[in-house]
């Protein structure tokens, strides 16, 4: 189906406004701030609400399968256009982003109440939302890349929000080192780490994109999907799969997948509202969404060209990351770190879904499963992060072992976190249950040899997820209050529920987790038709008419995994009938614990191999080569070039003399100037020199005459 450039109407303007309004709001924030802090705070929240309402206004058309596409000129010399593509899946995504972001903005009013520099905070938050919507609604890769880097920039600004790097804002355990590499990071270090790590992914993305562009001559999604010639050209060069994987590299960075996942746990140094925004609604989901765009393009253009290798790569990276990060969540001490590892792990599931899409009979199966999990995860993870923020405020600690027994004093938070954790763990009739089941089911039907190992990794992660979810709930809310809390109580600090402006947002999302869980099959059916119409209309893929289908093998795996994982968590952390510390006091489990706690040593390895050497090499080269060789050569060259220069002066004088006498005088003046430069009479010489030049010019102009 071809798209004519649509007229600018309210309908085609809306997708532009959805991303532009938060950006404009961000830019206006410093001006509004002059009217007072309250006005500024409410303005920022109102901007995100307006964007969300506009996003919602696109829903009816999208549910009806409509595609809105509008383009304007951008770089005419290259025939590059800018545009918005609001197809059903993008509109759905835009709404998830907008509404969850809005709730986080409301929550921020309470959470950030006592902070200073909030103008900067609100600026970056709205700019973040705007850039995310730009990613979602762009109709081409180049424009998407603007949003893509925009969210990277905002995450940098927000993770490093407390840029004075006070000790209390550091992330990680102070003093913990691995191979001499410190494992505790200041906020600005964490922000920089996030930016540079994701930037490495972005470079990969850009390489893939530019090769694609130089072959296809366009960045436009629809052109790429319609005109499939580029895929066979790339395949003929042996570059089809490399280009796909390079583009996927961008998603690996942004979505914190292995091997670029190490930035995300340390990104917890930012305010918790920021963590919620990054993890639930924006940044890390951008990678999944990129695959939701690039996947179908490659699938349809590359069919018959061996493009499955590309999807194998996505599926493997996803499944492995899901497992890798989940294992680390089991031993994390900080509540936000558990959630961070969990995010990395759950996004692995989504990537697995996007990957298996290309490996099963019907592309929509994996695609819908991945997107379903994205939706359910966005909701329950936002709830959990905001709940964690409330806990950190109330208990003045980020360590779970310094909490404990909070289920009575913070009942609303307890219930919300419990419901959200049930969604995360995949308890039947909660949202995560259905979406994880869909991914497992799709993985089981993969028609390549990868089916079995991918299923094993995904199933193992089910059980680990159940364990760490309930471990977290148990450590925080069950058992007796910790010494830390008792001490707080002694000092007259009573633990109490968070204010309503904070708990209402996460309570709403916890309820949504249940609501999606109760309507799971219908929800999945609706998602299937939304994604299906996008795939058919934009990417020209055939989608089977198919509603909800329960895969009983997958069901068995997830329920068994849940039981196996939840039971020890219940025993050790909720009922507390056994002491978990005895487990890791020695032997294999102790070594394993250390291995997991040290992040599989990957973080330390990166610092040793990449971070430190670039500074060391720079300094070493500077000392040895730059000052030792080049600088010294320059000294030698300088003395010899004095000789050359006198020859040069001769040429200068004679050549220039050839057509004008004045400059010769200037040449002499100049060489004397060099000698007399400190003597205070420079000015006169320079003055004469200038007059000399002017005489030359006037002579030239007098000799010549205007020719046109």
């Amino acid at each position, binding site marked *: 189906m071809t798209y004519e450039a649509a007229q600018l109407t309210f309908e085609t303007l809306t997708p532009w406004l959805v991303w532009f309004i938060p950006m404009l709001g961000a830019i206006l924030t410093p001006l509004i701030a002059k009217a007072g802090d309250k006005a500024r705070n409410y303005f920022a929240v109102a901007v995100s609400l307006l964007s969300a309402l506009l996003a919602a206004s696109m829903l009816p058309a999208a549910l009806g399968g409509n595609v809105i596409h509008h383009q304007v*000129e*951008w*770089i*005419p*010399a*290259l025939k590059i256009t800018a545009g918005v593509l609001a197809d059903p899946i993008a509109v759905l995504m835009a709404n998830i982003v907008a509404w969850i972001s809005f709730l986080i903005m409301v929550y921020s009013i309470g959470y950030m109440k006592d902070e200073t520099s909030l103008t900067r905070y609100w600026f970056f938050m709205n700019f973040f939302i705007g850039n995310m919507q730009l990613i979602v609604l762009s109709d081409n890769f180049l424009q998407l890349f*603007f949003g893509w*880097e*925009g969210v990277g920039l905002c995450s*940098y600004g927000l993770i*490093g929000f407390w*840029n*004075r*790097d006070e000790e209390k804002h550091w992330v990680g355990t102070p003093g913990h080192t691995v191979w001499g590499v410190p494992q505790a990071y200041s906020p*600005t270090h964490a922000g*920089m780490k996030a*930016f*540079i790590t994701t930037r*490495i992914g972005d*470079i990969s993305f*850009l*390489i893939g994109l*530019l090769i694609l562009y*130089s072959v296809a001559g366009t960045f436009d999604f629809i052109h790429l999907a319609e005109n499939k010639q580029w895929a066979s050209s790339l395949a003929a060069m042996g570059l089809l799969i490399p280009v796909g994987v390079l583009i996927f590299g961008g998603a690996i960075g942004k979505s914190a997948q292995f091997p670029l996942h190490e930035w995300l746990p340390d990104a917890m140094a930012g305010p918790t509202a920021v963590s919620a925004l990054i993890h639930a609604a924006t940044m890390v989901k951008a990678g999944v969404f990129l695959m939701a765009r690039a996947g179908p393009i490659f699938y349809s253009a590359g069919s018959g060209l061996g493009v499955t290798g590309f999807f194998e790569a996505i599926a493997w990276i996803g499944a492995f990351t899901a497992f890798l990060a989940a294992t680390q969540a089991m031993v994390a001490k900080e509540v936000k770190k558990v959630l961070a590892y969990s995010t990395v792990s759950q996004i692995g599931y989504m990537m697995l879904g996007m990957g298996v899409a290309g490996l099963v009979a019907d592309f929509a199966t994996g695609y819908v499963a991945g997107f379903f999990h994205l939706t359910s995860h966005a909701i329950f993870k936002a709830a959990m992060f905001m709940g964690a923020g409330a806990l950190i405020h109330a208990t003045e600690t980020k360590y779970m072992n310094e909490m404990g027994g909070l289920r009575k004093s913070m009942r609303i938070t307890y219930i919300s976190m419990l419901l959200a954790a049930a969604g995360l763990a995949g308890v039947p009739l909660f949202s995560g249950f259905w979406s994880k089941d869909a991914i497992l089911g799709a993985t089981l039907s993969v028609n390549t040899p990868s089916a079995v190992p991918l299923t094993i990794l995904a199933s193992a992660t089910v059980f680990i997820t159940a364990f760490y979810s309930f471990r977290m709930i148990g450590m925080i809310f069950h058992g007796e209050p910790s010494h830390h809390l008792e001490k707080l109580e002694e000092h007259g600090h009573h633990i109490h529920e968070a204010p309503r402006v904070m708990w209402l947002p996460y309570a709403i999302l916890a309820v949504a987790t249940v609501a999606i869980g109760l309507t799971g099959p219908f929800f999945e059916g609706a998602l299937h038709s939304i994604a299906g119409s996008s795939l058919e209309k934009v990417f020209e893929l055939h989608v089977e008419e198919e509603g909800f289908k329960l895969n009983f093998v997958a069901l068995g795996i997830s329920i068994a995994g849940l039981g196996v994982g939840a039971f020890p968590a219940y025993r050790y952390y909720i009922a507390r009938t056994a002491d978990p510390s005895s487990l890791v006091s020695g032997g294999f489990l102790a070594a394993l614990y250390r291995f997991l706690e040290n992040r599989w040593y990957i973080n330390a390895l990166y610092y040793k191999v990449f971070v430190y050497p*670039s*500074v060391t*090499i*720079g*300094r070493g*080269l500077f000392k040895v080569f*730059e000052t030792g060789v*080049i600088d010294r*050569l*320059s000294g030698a060259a*300088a003395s010899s*070039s*004095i000789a*050359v220069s006198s020859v*040069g002066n001769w*040429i*200068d004088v004679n050549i220039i003399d050839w057509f004008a006498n004045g400059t010769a005088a*200037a040449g002499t003046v100049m060489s004397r*100037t*060099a000698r007399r*430069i*400190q003597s205070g009479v*420079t*000015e006169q010489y*320079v003055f004469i*020199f*200038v007059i000399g*030049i*002017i005489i030359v*010019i006037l002579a*030239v*102009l007098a*000799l*010549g*005459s205007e*020719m046109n």
Partner: protein
Amino acid sequence: MTNLLQAVFLPIVLSPLIYYIGRRSGKAAGWLSFAVMVYSTLMLLIVTLPGATYIEQYSWNPIGIFGLKADGLSIPFALTIYLLCTALTIYSIPYMSHRIEEQTEHLSSEAREQTFKSKLGLYYMLYLLYASGMLGTVLATNLIQFYIFFELMLIPSFILIAEFGYGDRGRISFMYFLWTHVGALILLAGILTIGLTTGQFNIEAIRESSMPEGIRVWVAAAVTIGLAVKLAAFGLHIWLPYAHAEAPTPISALLSPAMIGIGGYALIRILIFILPSSYHTIALAVAIWGLITMIYGGLMAFAQDDIKRLLAYSSVSQMGYIIFGIASAASMGVSGAVFHFVTHGTGKAILFMTAGTIILQAHGIRSISKMGGLGSKLPLTTTAAMIGFLAIMGVPPTNGFQSEWMIFSGSLATATKIGAPIYYAIAVTALASTALTAGYALWTVKRIFFGSLPEELKDVKEASPTVTIPLLFLATVTLILGILPSYVTDWIIPLVSSILPG
């Protein structure tokens, strides 16, 4: 019409007057120079508005035609140069007063007053000459004329460093002069050979085919090496960190982005337009040279503690990007290189001005290890500096992204067309090395603006509007060109794609 003639020569002709006014009444010279620059920039803008090539020609026997030409290639350069010169004239007013006061502190109060004024006059006189020299170079239509302007921008900048610089300025200015002058002579050898063998100095009329085949590559090599000195390509770069670090900061902000990049302009004008077949012969070697310069400059930047030296090495690295783009043998890459001159012009000027602001406001401090936490003290400067760093990192929505993706796209276009692994290898390595830029840029931001504030810097305040307005103006230009690149691409791409593929 004499618009371009006025734009180039008005600053020269008025410069003695400015000197005189400076001697008489000090600071007024600065504002008057600003007026001159604004007028000249307007003259330039007017001819570029219709969007077509514009040329002024005067007969200039026996050398040929003395012409001033604003075409797709020269306009981005010319406008960037004059825009920077204009913005930096205002910036110079507080900065140079401060600098000259520093230099005249030891004098008795009467002598101080008079020396202050005459030095100020001297500064603006040279400043205007320097500006004209740069503009004349990029507008010249005749190789001899080009060379004269090329020297005319060298001499005033040399005296500016010698007279107003920091540190061992006498020696450093001489080193700067020698290096770039030797480069200019090698270039001159190339130019003269072109002119004498083709019997023609007018760029339009020169045909490579009328040169003896055996010498073409040698001429191309001479031109490239001569200009590589100006571009501070690896191996020929050693003068740059000294000169740019020790020049008075407004001059650093002109030297670094505007002047050395003119080497890139000349490389395109002479190598690609006049010697196209030799260009294709040496392109790969030059691209590798550019790549090495990119990486080496970046690594050196990591090792610096002096903020101006860091920026100077960053310029070396950025010139590597320009050389790399020029040598891509694809129209996208060359256009990207031209765009990158604009990017680096605004970006690096912002960063040098930031360094100058810190020097002005924080008691002359230049060592990064003594800075920290300045973000909250200098919010406007920090914002501008962040935008400048993002531009050199190539992050949207700054113009740096637009220029860099075009450079790399050109390089990859050549790679996909030729298919040899070496082309892929250099393109991928070049893209990968942008991580190095991100690394030193963000690390520098962190060390200057974040973290705890040292006790000595507690009283630092934002500078006066004559400093912050030029900064914010350039930051705005950086963003506008990043979002709406067609202001540059509409000029350069049609011209370059008429002679190069891809």
